[in-house]
Protein backbone atom coordinates (compact mmCIF):
# COMPACT_ATOMS: atom_id res chain seq x y z
CA UNK A 1 0.00 0.00 0.00
CA UNK A 2 1.47 3.35 -1.00
CA UNK A 3 1.86 5.83 1.81
CA UNK A 4 1.94 9.56 1.24
CA UNK A 5 3.34 11.84 3.92
CA UNK A 6 2.25 15.44 3.86
CA UNK A 7 4.61 17.83 5.61
CA UNK A 8 3.33 20.83 7.50
CA UNK A 9 3.02 23.68 4.95
CA UNK A 10 3.29 26.24 7.76
CA UNK A 11 5.19 26.56 11.01
CA UNK A 12 2.79 26.80 13.91
CA UNK A 13 0.27 25.10 16.15
CA UNK A 14 -1.89 22.22 14.90
CA UNK A 15 -5.63 22.93 15.07
CA UNK A 16 -8.32 20.25 14.51
CA UNK A 17 -10.46 20.89 11.43
CA UNK A 18 -13.58 21.04 13.60
CA UNK A 19 -12.17 24.16 15.28
CA UNK A 20 -11.61 26.12 12.07
CA UNK A 21 -13.80 29.24 12.26
CA UNK A 22 -15.50 28.56 8.93
CA UNK A 23 -18.46 26.20 8.51
CA UNK A 24 -17.38 24.74 5.17
CA UNK A 25 -13.96 23.71 6.49
CA UNK A 26 -15.16 22.77 10.01
CA UNK A 27 -17.88 20.49 8.64
CA UNK A 28 -15.34 18.95 6.25
CA UNK A 29 -17.57 19.67 3.27
CA UNK A 30 -14.54 19.93 1.01
CA UNK A 31 -12.69 17.14 2.83
CA UNK A 32 -10.82 16.02 5.93
CA UNK A 33 -7.46 17.30 7.08
CA UNK A 34 -6.00 19.58 9.71
CA UNK A 35 -5.37 23.26 10.21
CA UNK A 36 -2.36 25.19 11.46
CA UNK A 37 -2.32 28.51 13.25
CA UNK A 38 0.89 29.85 11.70
CA UNK A 39 3.55 31.66 13.67
CA UNK A 40 5.36 32.68 10.48
CA UNK A 41 4.00 33.90 7.14
CA UNK A 42 5.47 31.32 4.81
CA UNK A 43 3.59 28.50 3.06
CA UNK A 44 5.55 25.62 1.52
CA UNK A 45 4.54 22.61 -0.56
CA UNK A 46 3.49 19.78 1.79
CA UNK A 47 4.49 17.16 -0.79
CA UNK A 48 6.14 16.98 -4.19
CA UNK A 49 3.56 17.36 -6.92
CA UNK A 50 1.89 19.62 -9.43
CA UNK A 51 0.77 23.05 -8.34
CA UNK A 52 -2.58 22.62 -10.08
CA UNK A 53 -4.35 25.72 -8.83
CA UNK A 54 -3.01 28.94 -7.35
CA UNK A 55 -5.75 31.50 -6.82
CA UNK A 56 -5.22 35.02 -8.10
CA UNK A 57 -4.75 36.58 -4.69
CA UNK A 58 -2.24 33.92 -3.66
CA UNK A 59 -4.04 33.00 -0.43
CA UNK A 60 -4.79 29.40 -1.46
CA UNK A 61 -3.36 26.71 -3.68
CA UNK A 62 -4.06 23.11 -4.63
CA UNK A 63 -1.41 20.46 -5.23
CA UNK A 64 -1.94 17.14 -6.99
CA UNK A 65 0.24 14.20 -5.99
CA UNK A 66 -0.35 10.45 -6.33
CA UNK A 67 -3.88 11.18 -7.54
CA UNK A 68 -4.66 13.13 -4.38
CA UNK A 69 -5.64 16.76 -4.31
CA UNK A 70 -4.35 18.78 -1.37
CA UNK A 71 -5.75 22.25 -0.74
CA UNK A 72 -3.75 24.69 1.38
CA UNK A 73 -5.57 27.85 2.43
CA UNK A 74 -3.77 30.65 4.31
CA UNK A 75 -6.20 32.20 6.78
CA UNK A 76 -9.99 32.37 6.65
CA UNK A 77 -11.96 34.64 4.29
CA UNK A 78 -8.61 35.92 3.01
CA UNK A 79 -10.01 35.96 -0.55
CA UNK A 80 -11.34 39.38 0.49
CA UNK A 81 -7.80 40.73 0.87
CA UNK A 82 -7.51 40.43 -2.94
CA UNK A 83 -3.85 39.54 -2.72
CA UNK A 84 -2.86 42.33 -0.34
CA UNK A 85 -0.11 40.99 1.92
CA UNK A 86 0.46 37.86 -0.23
CA UNK A 87 3.45 37.24 -2.44
CA UNK A 88 3.41 34.25 -4.76
CA UNK A 89 6.72 32.37 -4.90
CA UNK A 90 5.60 29.81 -7.50
CA UNK A 91 3.01 29.72 -10.26
CA UNK A 92 0.14 27.47 -11.28
CA UNK A 93 1.36 24.61 -13.44
CA UNK A 94 4.74 24.39 -11.69
CA UNK A 95 6.08 21.03 -10.62
CA UNK A 96 7.06 21.69 -6.98
CA UNK A 97 9.15 19.77 -4.45
CA UNK A 98 8.11 19.03 -0.86
CA UNK A 99 9.18 21.97 1.31
CA UNK A 100 9.49 24.39 -1.59
CA UNK A 101 8.28 27.91 -0.67
CA UNK A 102 4.98 28.68 -2.42
CA UNK A 103 3.68 31.83 -0.79
CA UNK A 104 4.83 34.47 1.63
CA UNK A 105 2.16 36.35 3.55
CA UNK A 106 1.78 39.01 6.18
CA UNK A 107 0.13 37.56 9.29
CA UNK A 108 -0.28 41.02 10.81
CA UNK A 109 -2.13 42.25 7.71
CA UNK A 110 -4.57 39.30 7.91
CA UNK A 111 -5.23 40.04 11.59
CA UNK A 112 -5.48 43.79 10.99
CA UNK A 113 -8.18 43.12 8.39
CA UNK A 114 -10.10 41.16 11.03
CA UNK A 115 -9.60 37.68 9.61
CA UNK A 116 -8.42 34.53 11.34
CA UNK A 117 -4.94 33.31 10.44
CA UNK A 118 -5.96 29.67 11.01
CA UNK A 119 -4.97 27.87 7.82
CA UNK A 120 -6.67 24.64 6.72
CA UNK A 121 -4.97 21.82 4.81
CA UNK A 122 -7.67 19.74 3.15
CA UNK A 123 -7.61 16.45 1.26
CA UNK A 124 -10.42 17.03 -1.18
CA UNK A 125 -10.60 13.69 -2.95
CA UNK A 126 -9.49 11.18 -0.34
CA UNK A 127 -10.81 7.70 -1.21
CA UNK A 128 -13.11 6.22 1.45
CA UNK A 129 -10.72 3.27 1.77
CA UNK A 130 -7.69 5.45 2.58
CA UNK A 131 -6.36 5.69 6.13
CA UNK A 132 -5.54 9.15 7.37
CA UNK A 133 -3.21 9.72 10.34
CA UNK A 134 -3.04 13.22 11.78
CA UNK A 135 -0.49 15.11 13.86
CA UNK A 136 -1.67 15.71 17.44
CA UNK A 137 -3.84 18.75 18.10
CA UNK A 138 -1.94 21.65 19.69
CA UNK A 139 1.43 20.15 18.73
CA UNK A 140 3.98 22.49 17.16
CA UNK A 141 5.02 21.72 13.59
CA UNK A 142 7.72 23.23 11.39
CA UNK A 143 7.07 24.05 7.74
CA UNK A 144 8.58 21.52 5.34
CA UNK A 145 10.09 19.48 8.18
CA UNK A 146 7.46 17.85 10.39
CA UNK A 147 4.81 15.46 9.06
CA UNK A 148 1.25 16.76 9.39
CA UNK A 149 -0.85 14.10 7.69
CA UNK A 150 -0.08 10.58 6.54
CA UNK A 151 -2.28 8.90 3.96
CA UNK A 152 -2.24 5.14 3.40
CA UNK A 153 -3.85 4.60 0.02
Amino acid sequence: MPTLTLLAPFTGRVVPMEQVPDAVFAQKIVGDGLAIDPSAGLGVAPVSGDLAVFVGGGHAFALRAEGLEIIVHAGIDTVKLEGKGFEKLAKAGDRVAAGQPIVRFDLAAIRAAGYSTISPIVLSNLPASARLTKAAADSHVRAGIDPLLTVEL
Partner: protein
Amino acid sequence: MRDKALKVIEGLGGLSNIKDCEGCITRIRCTVVDPKLVNDKTLKAAGAVAVMKMGTGIQVIIGTYADLIATEMNKIRKGQ
Protein backbone atom coordinates in the same frame (compact mmCIF):
# COMPACT_ATOMS: atom_id res chain seq x y z
CA MET B 1 -16.40 26.23 -18.09
CA ARG B 2 -18.98 28.40 -19.88
CA ASP B 3 -21.62 25.65 -19.62
CA LYS B 4 -20.97 25.28 -15.90
CA ALA B 5 -20.94 29.04 -15.40
CA LEU B 6 -24.30 29.37 -17.16
CA LYS B 7 -25.73 26.57 -15.03
CA VAL B 8 -24.46 28.18 -11.80
CA ILE B 9 -25.95 31.54 -12.87
CA GLU B 10 -29.27 29.77 -13.47
CA GLY B 11 -29.02 28.12 -10.04
CA LEU B 12 -28.40 31.48 -8.41
CA GLY B 13 -31.65 32.82 -9.82
CA GLY B 14 -30.35 34.28 -13.06
CA LEU B 15 -28.09 37.21 -13.93
CA SER B 16 -30.44 39.81 -12.48
CA ASN B 17 -30.31 38.11 -9.08
CA ILE B 18 -26.49 38.24 -8.79
CA LYS B 19 -25.05 41.41 -7.23
CA ASP B 20 -21.43 40.28 -7.11
CA CYS B 21 -19.45 37.14 -7.52
CA GLU B 22 -15.89 35.99 -6.80
CA GLY B 23 -14.08 32.70 -6.89
CA CYS B 24 -11.94 31.20 -4.17
CA ILE B 25 -10.10 27.88 -4.18
CA THR B 26 -13.20 25.66 -3.88
CA ARG B 27 -16.06 28.12 -3.59
CA ILE B 28 -17.92 30.63 -5.66
CA ARG B 29 -18.97 33.42 -3.30
CA CYS B 30 -21.88 35.55 -4.41
CA THR B 31 -24.19 38.18 -3.06
CA VAL B 32 -27.71 37.81 -4.42
CA VAL B 33 -30.74 40.09 -4.42
CA ASP B 34 -33.24 37.44 -3.35
CA PRO B 35 -31.89 34.26 -1.69
CA LYS B 36 -35.24 32.54 -2.24
CA LEU B 37 -34.49 32.38 -5.96
CA VAL B 38 -31.40 30.25 -5.34
CA ASN B 39 -32.02 26.68 -6.45
CA ASP B 40 -29.81 24.11 -4.71
CA LYS B 41 -30.86 21.35 -7.12
CA THR B 42 -29.73 23.29 -10.17
CA LEU B 43 -26.46 24.21 -8.43
CA LYS B 44 -25.83 20.58 -7.48
CA ALA B 45 -26.57 19.53 -11.06
CA ALA B 46 -23.83 22.01 -12.06
CA GLY B 47 -21.37 20.17 -9.79
CA ALA B 48 -21.82 21.85 -6.41
CA VAL B 49 -21.19 19.58 -3.42
CA ALA B 50 -22.92 22.00 -1.05
CA VAL B 51 -24.57 25.40 -0.97
CA MET B 52 -24.20 27.61 2.10
CA LYS B 53 -26.57 30.53 2.65
CA MET B 54 -25.99 33.38 5.04
CA GLY B 55 -28.68 35.93 4.26
CA THR B 56 -27.95 37.25 0.78
CA GLY B 57 -24.44 35.76 0.88
CA ILE B 58 -24.30 32.47 -1.00
CA GLN B 59 -21.31 30.14 -1.17
CA VAL B 60 -21.38 27.43 -3.80
CA ILE B 61 -18.83 24.76 -2.88
CA ILE B 62 -17.87 23.23 -6.19
CA GLY B 63 -14.20 22.16 -6.05
CA THR B 64 -10.99 23.60 -7.42
CA TYR B 65 -12.62 24.81 -10.65
CA ALA B 66 -14.46 27.43 -8.58
CA ASP B 67 -12.17 30.29 -9.56
CA LEU B 68 -12.34 29.42 -13.28
CA ILE B 69 -16.13 29.17 -13.14
CA ALA B 70 -16.41 32.48 -11.25
CA THR B 71 -14.14 34.19 -13.78
CA GLU B 72 -16.37 32.90 -16.58
CA MET B 73 -19.51 34.01 -14.67
CA ASN B 74 -18.12 37.51 -14.37
CA LYS B 75 -17.38 37.58 -18.11
CA ILE B 76 -21.00 36.59 -18.80
CA ARG B 77 -22.19 39.25 -16.34
CA LYS B 78 -20.19 41.86 -18.24
CA GLY B 79 -21.71 40.62 -21.51
CA GLN B 80 -18.46 39.09 -22.79
